[in-house]
């Protein structure tokens, strides 16, 4: 087998060029010699037949054209020699026949050379393919000696063609392969493929995927092996790297503290798109057909989930989730959120984030922030990555915080009476206690056998100073009260009561108390301090709500009655259905009376003070049925005409 000239190295090229020149020179010389012989010799042989040597020599080195040219030239030379040699008898039979034979042989040699050249070109082309491949191609004879060694082999093993050809494969490459297996395969099937290890020139071992084909001669005898191999090392390394990277990703996925799972939503998507009528708006249609959304959701299949996801869903292990879906696990809240997510994805978003509230079949509520990402691979929506962050606790804490701050603000408004009372109690109590002590002390000093008037005088001085201290406190409280309370004016009770009810709304709602205001159609204005009257009403409402706090067997109703009374008074009655007060209901207005653990018992006594200061009266009675009624009266205002009161107003 000969190589073509193209693609050779520099040294080889010049070698071939020299060879070519040599042959051409030889051809030329021999041609000239034959011509001379033909022309000059008196021999009766067909000397011109020898021109085929020239043609053959040219065929070894030249292309088609060269061969044809040389054939033509030789033919012409033969004819010239003939004409010149037989100028006197051109049509001598013997010489003609000899010429014809020569020409025919030159022609035959030329044609055959051309064909041979074509065949060699084709072979050369085919051989070039072997050069193009990165794979190694090695051809060995039956003694394992290397006959052919391609570019790929040169590059891979590091031995050039010259170094390799002629050596045995084993000594050059230290092959390691399952020899028996190979021999068996070659024997039976004529080929073998598998992996083997070889050593490169620099000593590194490489792993190859190899295919061996048994070369047979025309009789079918094995005469050698054609082998092609591909280096697996690179592929192996890439594989290992990929596996490592996947393992790393898998570790992160599974170790993540937040729930993450991968799901196949392609069937879900198909179901939705098949169900939605053409032209309909996907989002609104899905909102109107939650059952379809749910069914579509059940068609999704979880491929993998991390431990955090298992915990989030309350599953026993990962296997429980794989193949299943999220929708089936939750009873409430899924259809809507799922529909929204699907609509967002269908509109082209590749990432959707949404906070959802799901309730399980057992009633467990879950607040979760979902992040849904589409992984663009294969069928649309076949890889959906979902990450979920449980915010139930955060929401609960936030709700508690909101409630606490609302409660605080609220308490500030409805407990002014208590706070005021506390500060008065403390500020006034101290000097009062001191006065009493000094008073009694003074008595004792004077009651001694020898009255200690000095000490007594000291006591009196202190009594006075403490009295002044108390007076200061009262003065301060009074000025404070003046600042917060506007002067006496005509007050519309129905509106005032509604406002008071609004203030205690949260408490009433939380305690499931229904508040109703009943009253006459026309109600005159009353005269009084608006803020203080409202404070009283709020206090009475709060007391009533708390009185019914522990009721189990009946609904908690609170009624506020409004009616005019004789002698130009309006009565406001707050009626509850709690446990009532018991004997001597009026005792609740005494200072420090309280049934509450943390109560100071100031509220009602202050209410009494306020009402009585406005010219009214406050009283308490137990109801005939359940609970108690606390009512107060206020004088009617002569200033404004009567107001048309609103009819029954209920609030919960």
């Amino acid at each position, binding site marked *: 087998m000969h190589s073509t000239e193209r693609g050779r190295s520099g040294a080889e090229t010049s070698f071939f060029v020299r060879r070519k020149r040599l042959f051409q020179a030889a051809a030329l010389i021999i041609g000239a010699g034959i011509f001379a012989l033909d022309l000059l010799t008196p021999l009766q042989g067909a000397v011109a037949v020898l021109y085929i040597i020239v043609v053959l020599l040219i065929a070894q080195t030249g292309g088609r054209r060269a061969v044809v040219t040389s054939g033509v030239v030789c033919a012409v030379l033969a004819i010239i020699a003939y004409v010149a040699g037989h100028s006197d008898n051109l049509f001598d039979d013997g010489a003609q026949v000899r010429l014809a034979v020569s020409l025919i042989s030159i022609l035959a040699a030329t044609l055959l050379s051309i064909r041979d050249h074509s065949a060699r070109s084709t072979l050369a082309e085919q051989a070039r393919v072997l050069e193009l491949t990165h794979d190694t191609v090695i051809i060995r004879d039956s003694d394992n000696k290397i006959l052919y060694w391609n570019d790929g082999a040169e590059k891979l093993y590091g031995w050039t063609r010259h170094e390799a050809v002629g050596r045995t494969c084993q000594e050059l490459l230290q092959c390691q392969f399952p020899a028996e297996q190979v021999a068996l395969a070659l024997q039976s099937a004529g080929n073998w493929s598998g992996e083997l290890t070889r050593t490169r020139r620099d000593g590194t071992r490489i792993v190859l995927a190899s295919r061996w084909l048994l070369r047979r001669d025309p009789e079918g005898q094995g005469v050698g092996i054609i082998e092609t191999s591909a280096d697996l090392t690179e592929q192996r390394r890439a594989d290992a790297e990929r596996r490592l990277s996947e393992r790393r990703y898998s570790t992160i996925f599974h170790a993540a503290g937040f729930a993450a799972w991968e799901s196949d939503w392609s069937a879900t998507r198909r179901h939705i798109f098949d169900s939605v009528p053409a032209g309909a708006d996907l989002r609104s249609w899905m909102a109107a057909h939650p059952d379809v959304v749910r069914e579509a959701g059940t068609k999704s299949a979880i491929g993998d989930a991390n431990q955090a996801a298992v915990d989030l869903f309350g599953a026993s292990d990962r296997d429980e989730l794989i193949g299943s879906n999220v929708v089936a696990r939750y009873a409430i809240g899924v259809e809507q959120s799922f529909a929204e997510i699907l609509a967002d994805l269908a509109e082209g978003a590749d990432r959707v984030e949404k906070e959802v509230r799901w309730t399980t079949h057992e009633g467990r509520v879950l607040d979760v922030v979902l992040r849904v990402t589409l992984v663009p691979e294969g069928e649309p929506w076949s890889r959906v990555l979902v990450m979920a962050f449980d915010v139930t606790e955060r929401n609960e804490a936030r709700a508690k915080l909101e409630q606490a701050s609302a409660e605080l603000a609220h308490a500030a408004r409805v407990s002014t009476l208590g706070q005021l009372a506390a500060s008065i109690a*403390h500020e006034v109590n*101290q000097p009062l*206690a001191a006065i009493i*002590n000094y008073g*009694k*002390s003074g008595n004792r000093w004077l009651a001694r056998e020898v009255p200690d008037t000095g*000490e007594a005088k000291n006591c009196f001085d202190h009594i006075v100073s403490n009295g002044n201290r108390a007076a200061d406190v009262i003065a301060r409280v009074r000025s404070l009260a003046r600042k917060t309370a506007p002067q006496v004016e005509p007050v519309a009770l129905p509106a005032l009561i509604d406002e008071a009810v609004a203030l205690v709304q949260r408490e009433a709602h939380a305690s499931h108390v229904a508040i109703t205001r009943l009253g006459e159609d026309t109600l005159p204005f009353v005269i009084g301090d608006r803020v203080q009257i409202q404070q009283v009403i709020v206090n009475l409402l709060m007391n009533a709500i708390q009185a019914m706090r522990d009721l189990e067997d009946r609904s908690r109703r609170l009624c506020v009655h409004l009616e005019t009374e004789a002698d130009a008074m309006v009565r406001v009655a707050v009626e509850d259905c709690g446990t009532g007060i018991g004997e001597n209901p009026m005792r609740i207005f005494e200072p*420090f009376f309280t049934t509450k653990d943390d109560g*100071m018992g100031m509220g009602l006594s202050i209410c009494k003070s306020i009402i009585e200061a406005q010219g009214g009266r406050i009283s308490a009675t137990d109801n005939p049925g359940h609970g108690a009624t606390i009512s107060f009266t206020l004088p009617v205002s002569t200033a404004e005409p009567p107001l048309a009161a609103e009819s029954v107003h209920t609030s919960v």
Partner: protein
Amino acid sequence: MKQSPTICIVDDDDDVRSSLENYLRSVGVEVRSFVSAEDFLASDDRLDADCLITDLHMPGMDGMTLQRELNKLGRSFPVIVITAFPTSAAQEQSADLGAAAFLSKPVDPDMLLDRVEEILQ
């Protein structure tokens, strides 16, 4: 009551404290008064005390904590609590800490004296 027992008073309010001290003196009783619970705990008079009368609400250490501290240190005298905020919760807590009496301000000093006598018997 032993001849001239030592009563200790703790109250941050100057008027209340001195008036009570004056009264007890007029009775003829040994009195030591302290403006704060810390002062009382730090003083040596504590060791002579036969009875302690204390307020509850004071800046710094309050009356409940004082009771607790005294219990920890091991006290040998009864404690009477006088307060301007006589809530039932406070009364319970005080009783749990071993108070001999729980009285609301303003306290009648004669009544207080009777209680002290009673307790010291």
